[in-house]
Every structure is written in structure tokens, then in C-alpha cells.
């Protein structure tokens, strides 16, 4: 296991060289070793899944902390939205018949958390178009009329938002 390959994998080098440092940095920042390990893990996973790996090589530690910070912010936001939604439902009470199961609610909450993060990265108009269509079920033409844009533009908004939704790691729930 100590053998070394000649053509080194840049990701392996990045991991070997800086993983311990990143965990330490996160632990100091968060004060929670488990969460620090999780975020560090997600940071590397994200780099692994993106094409930014080469870019990371120039300033590895700056790149790692930026990525980790972004993940932290996204995760906090995502969880805040999920929990606010669930709390809202509880406050609203269980007056509904055929209420969704906890699993269904959780899937809904996770999707909501995910889009909340994604929608922050697009214009407010695009975000509103997305919510009107997928949350409220409005048609393209109706949204176009409300916003004073073409249906073509509405489609463009929706695609934009979807792309940001895809650009995320799956939600992780730490204990």
C-alpha cells in the first residue's frame, strides 16, 4: 500500500497532501469532528465529480477552503429550508385528509432545500418562473404573461434553474 505509481493521479496527490489539513481547518471552524470529516469528504467528492480538479492544483488550499465554504453555506441553507418547511407543516396542523407519509414529506423537503440553493444562483425572475411552474403548476404562457416575457424566455429560465439543481451533491443529513 506504500507503493507509488509513476504517473500520479492529481486527485490522489491532492487528497494525500491536503485532506488532513482540510479536516483540521474545518474542525477548528465548526468545532465538530464528525461534521468536519463529512464536509471534507464532500469537498473532495465534489472536486472529483467536477472538472475543476486541474484548476485546484494551482492553489490547492485556497481552492479547497473555497469549495468547502461553499458547501457549508449551501448545506446550512438547504437544511434551514427543509426544516422550516417541516416546521411550517406542523404549525399548519394536520387538518388534511390523506396526509403524505413522513417519507413523502422528507423527499419534498429535500427537493425544496435543493432548489432553494439552486434558485439563489439565478435571477429572481427565473426563480419565480420556476416556482410558478413546478410548485404552483402554472403553464408557460401564463407565466410569460405575468412576467411580460416570451414563452421562449420562460423555457430558458426553467432550463437555467434545472441546470443549477443538477449541480449539487445529494443532500446529506449528519446526525
Amino acid at each position, binding site marked *: 500500500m506504500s507503493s507509488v505509481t509513476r504517473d500520479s493521479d492529481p486527485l*490522489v496527490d491532492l487528497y494525500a497532501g491536503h485532506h488532513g489539513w482540510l479536516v483540521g481547518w474545518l474542525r477548528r471552524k465548526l468545532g465538530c469532528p464528525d461534521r468536519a470529516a463529512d464536509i471534507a469528504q464532500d469537498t473532495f467528492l465534489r472536486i472529483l465529480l467536477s472538472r475543476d480538479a486541474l484548476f485546484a492544483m494551482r492553489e490547492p488550499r485556497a481552492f479547497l477552503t473555497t469549495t468547502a465554504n461553499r458547501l457549508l453555506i449551501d448545506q446550512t441553507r438547504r437544511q434551514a429550508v427543509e426544516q422550516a418547511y417541516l416546521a411550517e407543516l406542523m404549525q399548519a396542523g394536520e387538518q388534511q385528509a390523506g396526509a403524505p407519509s413522513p417519507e413523502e414529506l422528507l423527499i419534498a*423537503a429535500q427537493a425544496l432545500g435543493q432548489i432553494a440553493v439552486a434558485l439563489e444562483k439565478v435571477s429572481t425572475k427565473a426563480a419565480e418562473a420556476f416556482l410558478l411552474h413546478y410548485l404552483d403548476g402554472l403553464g408557460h404562457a401564463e407565466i410569460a404573461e405575468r412576467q411580460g416575457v416570451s414563452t421562449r424566455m420562460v423555457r430558458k429560465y426553467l432550463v437555467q434553474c*434545472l441546470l443549477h439543481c443538477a449541480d449539487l451533491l445529494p443532500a446529506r443529513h449528519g446526525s
Partner: protein
Amino acid sequence: MNDRLQAVPEDLVEQAAEWLVRQGVDDPAEARAAADAFAAWKAADPRHAAAAARLENVIDGLREIRQSSTQSSARKALRLSQRPRWSAGARALSILLIIAAGLFPAVWISGTQPTHLMADLRTLRGEWTARTLDDGSRLALSGGTAVNLEFTPEKRIVRLLDGEIMVDVAPDANRPFVVETEYGTIRALGTRFLVTAIDGATRLSMLESRVEVRTAPDAPPRLLRAGESLTFGPNREESPEAVDSSLLDTAWNARQMVVRDRPLGEVLDEIARHRSGYLRYDRKALAGIHVSAVLPLDDTDRALQLLLNSFPELHIRRITPYLVMVGRAEKP
């Protein structure tokens, strides 16, 4: 699950997003045409399907909100959490959150795939469990397994979504017992057997008695007897192989994996299913290596070490317990 995550090329996600939006246009005929074309596009390539699934998961979650008529709660949550700081009033909220979290302990802790969250029975990676079903049949699940049950007065159906199950069927002449997978159905004829979801196929190993296997609704059933194993899926037309059923039985109870002449990639997939870290390997680079072994699944580090011992051409880099990479060693 993180180790199942694959990089999906961006242009595919873009195409998937385009399709998804087009199937939501106002004109019903146009929307239907787009939906059909989208389905064909997804079927054309598993990477297309993977790209689409990422987006569809989100849309499905939002549909859930719509169907439960909780849009106003959703919008409120989006607005509320936008506040940069939590106000004093939010503290009351956080108490509710703890209650809310307490209601869903299992889902809160696990990082399971959303589709499997809905499964009737499931295990986390590295977790084994066994259950006696209503009819007296025994169902045992190894790590990373998800199963749906459909038991009616007429039939007993177990749907294997992922992972591996050992089935011990209680006889009932009036209610056939059927295991369904993505790639076929297995009808028990009073019996004990093992079903494993592997990459793009299903593997069935018979321990006792017989089953009938159908790989398509109109395909003739195949009879499989104790001591035989069959792998079936779209690109696998294999004939049954002999297995040592008592060895398989012992291995299952000892949480071991018995493989005979299996591709290394398949074996690593299975090890990954029992491991909480990230196991990375290049299937192509490892192609051609076949494994026959008995490996401990409750100690995956040792399993990897055993593989390394018997395959000097392998090269295992343990960067941390979270990230292990398997490749081919360089020739000296």
C-alpha cells in the same frame, strides 16, 4: 449514495433539462410528443437516464409538495430561511424542528437514495437484518439492500430494488411467492434461495428445492434447481452454473461472499455495498481479472487485503478509510 455517484457530463444534463422543460409545455400534443422523445432519449443510453434522474428527483419532490397542497408552507420556508439571522421568534421554530427531526429518525440519519427511502424494508451499508413476514416466510437482507413487499390474499410479491436477499419461503399452495427484480421474476416452488442485484443484472442462487425464472413476461419459464446459479439481465444470456449450496448457506450466515470466477469489478461493487467509505476503481483497467474467493463482508478492509494477497497485479491505495482506490500495479 456517494459511492454510486457518477460524474454525468454537463452537456447531457443540459439536454435532459431541455427535454424536461419541453415536456411541460402548454400544448398537450406537443408535450406528449416531447415526453415520448424524452423517454426514447433516456432509454438510448444509461448516462442519459442518469442525467435525467438527477433532475427528475427534484421535480418529483416538488410534485409531492403540489399534491399535498403545501405550496404555501414551501414558499414560506423559502422566505423564512432567506433571513440572514435567526430572530428570537425563530427559536420557537427550532424547537419544532427538533420535534420534526425526531419524527423521522431513520431518514434523518441515513443518506440513502431517495427512491429507496420509500422501500418497505431496507438496510444501510454494512447492516444485516432478517425478518419473518406475515406468511411465516423468512427474508434476510444484507447491507445496502432495499425491498418492497406486496402481500395480498392471492399473491406474495417481494420486489428487490437493490442489494441482496436470502429468501426462505413458507409453503402456501394458494398464494404463489414471487421475487421481482428489474430483470425478471422468480417464482418459488417451496424453497430457499439468494437473489442479488448486480451491475445491470440479477443473480439467483438456489440453495434448496426449485424456482421458475422468467426474464420477460412472454418468455418461457426456466426451471432452476438446488445447487444452481443463474445470472440474468439484458446483456447476459448465461446458462446455469453449479454452486455449492451448503457453502453459500454457511457463507451467508458468516457474512461472507463466495464467488467463483467472477469479474473483479462485480466483486468490488459488492464490497462497496458493505462499506461506508468511497471505493474507487477503474472497471476498464481491471477488466479481465476474474476472482474465485470467500471474502468477509463485515470486514471489508480485510476483504480488500485478501484480494491483494491473491492478486499481486492489483494495487490498492488506502488514502483514508473514506477513500480507497483499486487499480493495476505497474509491471516491475
